[in-house]
């Protein structure tokens, strides 16, 4: 999904795929795609020999439909930061504020 972000937290092996959020293995009902993605992921498990290495899976998401990947309501953090924009630097640095702030 986001191999650069995943790599930044020190994951031992990464099989990177360019699929929309919530559709990691593929579209609903697309058994063939889901099987191939899982097969390629397990193949990556066998071929990766060095911690932190990434295999980029060869699947293309061809649909140009504007998929609704977004949740029915904005996530709580999005609403919070709109009301408390001075906490955006803390969100960027991943340092939550103390409860009293």
């Amino acid at each position, binding site marked *: 999904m986001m191999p650069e*972000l995943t790599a930044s937290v020190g994951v031992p092996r990464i099989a990177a795929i360019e699929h929309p959020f919530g559709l990691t293995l593929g*579209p*609903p009902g697309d058994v063939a795609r889901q099987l191939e993605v899982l097969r390629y992921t397990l193949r990556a498990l066998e071929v990766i020999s060095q911690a932190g290495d990434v295999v*980029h899976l060869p699947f293309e998401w061809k649909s140009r439909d504007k998929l609704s990947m977004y949740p029915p309501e904005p996530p709580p953090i999005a609403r919070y930061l709109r009301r408390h924009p001075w906490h955006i630097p803390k969100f960027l640095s991943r340092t939550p504020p103390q409860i009293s702030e």
Partner: protein
Amino acid sequence: MVRTVDSYRFLEGVTRRVMKHWASLGRPPDIPWAPLAKPVAQCAISLLSSAGLALKTDLPFDRDIERRDPWFSDPSYRVLPRTASTGEVHVCHLHINPAFAEQDLNCVMPIERLNDLEASGEVGRSALSHYSYMGYTVRPEALLQQSVPGIVHHLREEKVDAVVLVPV
């Protein structure tokens, strides 16, 4: 030529900038590593999904934890048996559209697909149990200190050889 995945293709605006910034914060110096001891065709494989999946017969993840403190989420985990199927599972993650996984669980937790690979001999076996947790948190301590050891304990009991973590 090997195609390189674009990490940010499906992101826009502020979210895209935040994710790029987080990715730039650098990686830990020590990455855990365990060599794969045998071919996948002989391995017991378990799945771990960050989609916040819970059986409808189990307690759902408490989404009010995140609604009260948007820097945190329910740090517990759930166990899904290898027999779990679409329609039996709640999708509790607050940052994705749950409709895809509600229509087909395999989009984010390919239990049935793993069972297919077991039937064809391409994996040794699908583990008896698979796992899920809430993937969003900026305070991961409780997840790391409580839930992860619990999951590891289950994995060892079931003699799992490898875990595929499925992000959403």
